[in-house]
């Protein structure tokens, strides 16, 4: 990608002004710029704004937009609160060298269909915080996007949750054919599915079917997998056909729910 003008703002205010008033494009991890053939009139680099953190904030955990995948993968706080969930979610993404570059914010803001992380974040009921202070449901944002240019500051997560991430890839360095994450929030179940190959969606009918019972029967798990695969749309591409994705998802949802149920 060609960047005609580059800016490295020193404050969130300055970054926000450049994006809103001068139509700048926020630069997150920038790992995909090399393969993008577009021209960026004004690139607004978010490095150096102090957005690299994973921290507790009251009843929530905050992830700064410039936090890398490798930081998610190796976070002791996440291991303590979510078990191996984040490691399972991001550790298939190419290699450590790329995971030291790509960022949470770049993935969320890009609303990429192939994303592993967005699926897990949606299952956890994450919120996205846009500077200077608008908080939105992440699943809504992934589905609908934003109406105006935005500056993603951080992601909010619950302090802990039992959840499972499952995916199928042709090879380790490839995008997933299909992925899913399930979570028990303490009061209800959440199921998210991504890489259909379109972007992540919540399976609201399947979630409703599971209700508020933490002890799921095998029959209910199978019924939820049926409901989820029926309510979503799937596409075909070079990696898999729509029907292959649907069949695979059925298995992955069952595995995820069984893992969370225990």
């Amino acid at each position: 990608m060609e960047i005609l003008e580059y800016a490295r703002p020193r404050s969130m205010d300055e970054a926000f002004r450049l994006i809103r008033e001068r139509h700048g494009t926020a630069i997150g991890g920038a790992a995909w710029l090399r393969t993008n053939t577009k021209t960026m009139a004004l690139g607004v680099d978010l490095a150096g704004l102090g957005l690299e953190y994973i921290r507790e904030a009251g009843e929530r955990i905050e992830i700064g937009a410039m936090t890398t995948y490798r930081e998610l993968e190796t976070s002791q706080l996440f291991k303590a609160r979510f078990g191996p969930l984040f490691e399972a979610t991001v550790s298939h993404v190419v290699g450590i060298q790329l995971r030291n570059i790509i960022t949470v914010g770049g993935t969320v803001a890009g609303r990429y269909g192939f994303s592993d992380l967005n699926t897990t974040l949606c299952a956890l009921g994450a919120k996205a915080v846009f500077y200077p202070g608008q908080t939105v449901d992440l699943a809504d944002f992934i589905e609908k996007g934003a109406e105006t240019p935005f500056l993603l500051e951080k992601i909010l997560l619950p302090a802990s949750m039992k959840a499972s991430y499952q995916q199928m890839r042709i090879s380790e360095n490839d995008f997933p054919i299909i992925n899913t994450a399930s979570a028990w929030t303490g009061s209800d179940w959440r199921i998210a599915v991504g890489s259909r190959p379109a972007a992540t969606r919540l399976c609201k009918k399947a979630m409703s079917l599971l209700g508020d019972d933490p002890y799921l029967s095998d029959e209910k798990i199978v019924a939820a997998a049926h409901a989820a695969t029926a309510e979503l749309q799937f596409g075909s591409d070079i990696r898999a056909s729509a029907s292959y994705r649907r069949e695979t998802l059925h298995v992955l949802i069952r595995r995820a729910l069984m893992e969370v149920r225990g």
Partner: protein
Amino acid sequence: MIITLHINGKEESVECLPGEMLTEVLRRAGYLEVKKGCDTGNCGVCTVLLEGKPVLSCSYLAIRADGKEVTTIQGLAGEAKKFAQFLTAEGADQCGFCAPGFALTVLSMKKELHDPNEAEIRHYLAGNLCRCSGYEGQIRAIKKYLEAEHA
């Protein structure tokens, strides 16, 4: 734009375009040991250490490296030569094109992981592809190298 990089302990002022990746800038500055492979963030041959962490230089904006420490394989030549003896002994090096990026990742792993098992080694090195498919030999060489280093 002019940026300043600290490459292998030496300060270098280099010119770069805003959208240019670190591989191009390093090679233009003469650091030809930084190889160009897939150039799309997949193969790992362009690996360098940035502030001590392995990154793909083909996918890292050069301008972001301004003021930072960049280490190529030449910057760790002593350690790399020691590791290379194990690669040679195991017949794990064929064309050698992936070796600079591969060796840097191995040396980074040695610092980051204490006594890794084979699964951890394979996982850490998943981002380094070898077109000669020398993986089994590489794994043997890494294990013996780490054993020797810990002895």
